[in-house]
């Protein structure tokens, strides 16, 4: 019984070593616009970023714009479900500070890991272009 246990543990350890990788998301994502990006794919940050087709999907998946985080009845004080709300924090610099975790405001997403470089760059490009309603 004891030998069986030791064998099982050894097999588990070998299994873990074999499935050990050293992957970095920036290396897996495509080169366009992502620092250090070398992989293939279609994270496209080339050209003009459109609010409707580039920014809103990112907000939807990362910013709780349908719940109490950043939706219409939010507890945070920032409504990101409308263009006006997003444009306001873009102009004030809070949006960039929050997603880049610069320390000036509470890091966003709150209580979680930072968004991927791909998403951050999309939003930054849109902010730098004047955060238009396009």
């Amino acid at each position, binding site marked *: 019984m004891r030998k069986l*246990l030791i064998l099982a*543990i050894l097999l*588990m*350890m070998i299994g*873990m070593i074999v*499935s*050990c*990788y*050293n*992957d*970095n*998301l*920036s*290396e*897996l*994502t*495509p080169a366009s616009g992502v*620092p*250090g990006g070398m*992989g293939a*794919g*279609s*994270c*496209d940050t080339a050209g003009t970023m459109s609010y409707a087709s580039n920014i809103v*999907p*990112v907000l939807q*998946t*990362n910013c709780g714009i349908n719940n*109490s985080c950043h939706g219409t009845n939010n*507890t945070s004080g920032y409504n990101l479900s409308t263009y006006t709300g997003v444009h306001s924090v873009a102009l004030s610099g809070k949006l960039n500070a929050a997603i880049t*975790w610069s*320390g000036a405001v*509470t*890091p966003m997403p*709150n*209580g*979680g*890991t*930072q*968004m*991927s*470089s*791909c*998403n951050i760059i999309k939003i930054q490009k849109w902010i730098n272009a004047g955060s238009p309603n396009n």
Partner: protein
Amino acid sequence: MALLNKTDTTKEYVSATFKGTRIINFQSVETPGKHVLEFMIQHRFGQINSGINSLFGLDNGATIRFGLGYSINDRLEVGIGRTSYEKLLDSYLKYRLLRQSTDGSMPVSVTLFGSAYCTTQQDPDAAANGFNKYAYFGDRLAFCIEPIIARKFSDNFSLQLNPTYIHYNLVEAITDKNNAFALGVAGRYKLTRRMAVTAEYGIRYMSYTASQNYHNTLGIGWEIETGGHVFQMFITNSNGIADSQFMTHTTNSWKNGGISLGFNISRAFNF
């Protein structure tokens, strides 16, 4: 005469260095007793700094972990669990390598802890980005190894060190490294036979990330043991419950009130 000279060689071991198998988030040196199945619920509420409107975090989204741990013999525990944050499945082995003895010949208890983590969530950005960061299954995995060292100094006071090594198969930012080291320090002070105060602090070795927005985990708690239950209530700045989450990826800090109320309940079943 030979019988008189023979000394009693059975050693007496120190028992109950800690009441439960967790301190607050940290693993403790303890495992459930022989053939005991431990069912554990770990719950963390939202942050206290979210104000009175959300009852200081009690209304907000919580992190929950359910876990089962079974002690095969007196020394080896095998367990599984699932954490809601990152939808993380974990499985672990805990082996009581050395036990502190009452006569002082072994001054510490050492338990080896090893765990594998698998996040079962879909990549939320897959549609927006056009690629799936979990395209390789191996990128869902992380591993943790901890040799836990503890000493029961007196009936009332125990102290523990958790040197931790975590390997993440996939990390996000270009400046993140796949290996992280940390040293956890934890202790408990017994107030009465059934109640104790506990505290834990994780000191990270910072080369695993360049981000300044992660903090060391600090928790302060209070525990009660009643019959087959251990009930722990505490305040901690960590949202994550699995070792791969709270030790290295705590984004809230005590300074700005990013602390959450939480509790652990465990129940032991004899088989």
